[in-house]
């Protein structure tokens, strides 16, 4: 298949890091499109430019997204990748797989596609990289039959994503895997039928280490936390001390609020719980000895996104603490995001992400209209200007003649 030479790409088969070129060549053994893709890429390496175009809308019946249309710019030269679309398959929570499921993915893709995938896309999907327009519906049909569904693309709820959480992490403050699964299922319509001003993303991290990068990468960032005090196992503290672990220097001195004290005599830790910001540092350093509090839940932060158009935004706190209970079906969270999306849908301009909208119209208006109480946790610091929008109805206007007449 790959008779044509790829001298530049071949260079990238050397070195210790696993090679995507090798992977492309493996795919190309049985896939003509993968073979041509290598040629197109080699040419890009020579010319320092890409050769792909976006184009007409491609998709499956009943959905508005999930497929990214892509065409090579010289279809005559590269007929096998003239159409080379991407299909996004919604991944299982936490990227957990059994081999049967993975093999099913491979088997179907082998029938129709380039044999190339991304495991996974940057949002979280299984990315099936490169197929023809005519095959899109059959591909979907077969995957659907096998228990898979498409992920998001376009102005919709995008594929949600979560950290490994309680599946394998002692730090998880809520069930990220179940939250992601349950909430994704709740919002199937929002995921599959784009109808908003722009895309919206949710990421679930079990604690403030934020292993999904939610705060930077999702409009709605759900970050596990707790409301009471961190807990100590003082026997385990002593074990760390016995191993000459520098508790004072590496743990206490780096506590951002200096609320953690090490008594080196007694070899015991103590904390001023109300001053702890639950940053996770001490827990990270001494997982055997320090644990999160008992009253667990999550902070909800809103507005994260990358650079286009108004600059990158990080999410910021809107609900400092919310219970994320499987038992109550995450109702409080679902209600909240519904209110927020409705508001955004009503007020947002085309291609305006949630964070940009809040910035444009003001956090105060956002909170008021979404019925979220204002609390000091929402800001690093209060406003520096005195330009308050007063609710005119709350004022005593009896003496104010607004028509210009003297008072």
């Amino acid at each position, binding site marked *: 298949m790959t008779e044509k030479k790829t001298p530049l790409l071949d260079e990238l088969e050397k070195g210790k890091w696993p090679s995507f070129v090798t992977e492309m060549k493996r795919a190309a053994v049985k896939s003509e499109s993968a073979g041509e893709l290598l040629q197109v890429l080699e040419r890009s390496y020579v010319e320092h430019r890409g050769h792909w175009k976006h184009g007409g809308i491609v998709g499956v019946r009943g959905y508005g997204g999930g497929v990214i249309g892509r065409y090579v710019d010289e279809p005559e030269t590269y007929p096998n990748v003239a159409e080379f679309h991407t299909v996004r398959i919604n991944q299982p929570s936490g990227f957990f797989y059994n081999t049967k499921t993975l093999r099913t993915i491979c088997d179907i893709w082998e029938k129709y596609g380039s044999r190339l995938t991304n495991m996974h896309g940057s949002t979280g999907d299984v990315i099936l990289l490169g197929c023809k327009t005519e095959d899109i519906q059959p591909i979907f049909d077969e995957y659907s039959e096998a228990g898979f569904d498409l992920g998001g693309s376009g102005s919709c709820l995008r594929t949600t994503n979560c950290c490994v959480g309680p599946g394998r992490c002692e730090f998880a403050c809520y069930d990220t895997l179940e939250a992601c699964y349950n909430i994704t299922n709740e919002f199937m319509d929002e995921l599959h039928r784009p109808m908003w001003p722009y895309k919206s993303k949710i990421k679930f991290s079990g604690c403030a280490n934020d292993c999904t990068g939610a705060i930077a990468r999702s409009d709605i960032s759900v970050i596990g936390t707790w409301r009471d005090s961190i807990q100590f196992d003082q026997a385990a503290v002593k074990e760390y001390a016995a191993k000459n672990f520098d508790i004072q220097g590496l743990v206490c001195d780096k506590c951002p609020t200096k609320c953690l004290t090490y008594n080196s005599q007694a070899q015991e830790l103590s904390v001023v719980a109300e001053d702890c*910001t639950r940053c996770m540092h001490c827990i990270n350093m001494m997982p055997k000895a320090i644990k999160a509090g008992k009253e667990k839940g999550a902070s909800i932060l809103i507005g994260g996104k990358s650079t286009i158009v108004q600059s990158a935004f990080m999410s910021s706190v809107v609900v400092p603490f919310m219970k994320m209970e499987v038992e109550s079906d995450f109702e409080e969270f679902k209600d909240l995001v519904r209110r927020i999306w409705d508001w955004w849908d009503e007020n947002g301009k085309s291609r305006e992400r949630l964070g940009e909208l809040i910035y444009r119209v003001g*956090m105060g208006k956002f909170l008021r209209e979404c019925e979220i109480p204002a*609390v000091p946790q929402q800001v690093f610091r209060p*406003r*520096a200007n005195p*330009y*308050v929008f007063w609710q005119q109805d709350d004022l005593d206007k009896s003496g104010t003649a607004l028509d210009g007449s003297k*008072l």
Partner: protein
Amino acid sequence: MAKLDQGPPNYKEMLPPIIKENYGKWQYHEIPQPGVLKHVAESGAALYSVRVGSPRLVSIDFIRDICNLADQYCDGHLRFTTRNNVEFLVSDEAKLKELLETLSAQGYAVGGTGASISNIIHTQGWVHCHTPATDASGVVKAVMDDLYEYFESMKLPAKLKMGLACCLNMCGSTHCSDIGIVGVHRTPPRIDHEKLRKTTEIPTLVASCPTGAIRPDPKNKSVVVNEDKCMYCGNCYTMSPAMEIYDPRNDGIAILIGGKVSNARTAPSFSRMVIPFLPNNPPRWPEVTEAIRSIIELWIANAHKGERLGEWIERIGWEKFFSLSGLPFSEMLIDDYIFARETFRTAAGFKY
């Protein structure tokens, strides 16, 4: 005919001999007692400066009084500070005690040095300006009376610098003060269409509104204000007398705290709004004096030695300040202007 462009009087003619002799050769200073600075020069010479509070709005009689004192104790030399206090420049140590006694006898306010509250930088208010939302001198008098103990002693955690501006133009430079007292309007301007037609260039007026709330109304040869967009800054009134913005029932005072301008330890910082509105309640503005006193007492009780008000709050966190102070938090306090974004808590770490 007047001489043009001759510039200000030459400061050199104003300096007392001890300063001329030791100009740029000062070695260190001490504060022997509140209100008295002792500067010692390389030559060993010592200059005593006695700081006296001033209402700033003074009659020429006041100026003549202090001139008399300066003649008597300072060989005719004195200065004012950048905070409008008077400083008597005493080069003869013997005269220091006498001066202090005279000042005390005549009821002058001596203090404002070191870890104290000095005079409040302030503005015109109802005395002379056309856009005030509150008075200046009156509020300052009420607040300084209330806090006088901290002017004449040096028992605060650090210096406390206050500013007052009677409207959002902020002539009192309250925007970087430990405590800023700012007169605020809360209702949109009222348009006098007739006056507007006579006095105002409409495009300039329209352009002056920072939020784009003013639209031309060509039919009426006037303008319309979109009241939802107005945040009552009064900039339109500065541009046009036809846009009156004062409103006796709704004008009042906002309190912003935690700013500083010195670079010592921490970078200069803006003051932050903690109370969006207190009513104008002359002559003594009790709501304002009480609010300020509570904040100061909280600071005294909790700050480390040497910690400015804002440095203390930044250390404990603004959310903690609100819980300690019991001040109500509301969306009014959340920034929604141009640089709002950097104030949002883009982090999962905070105190409850």
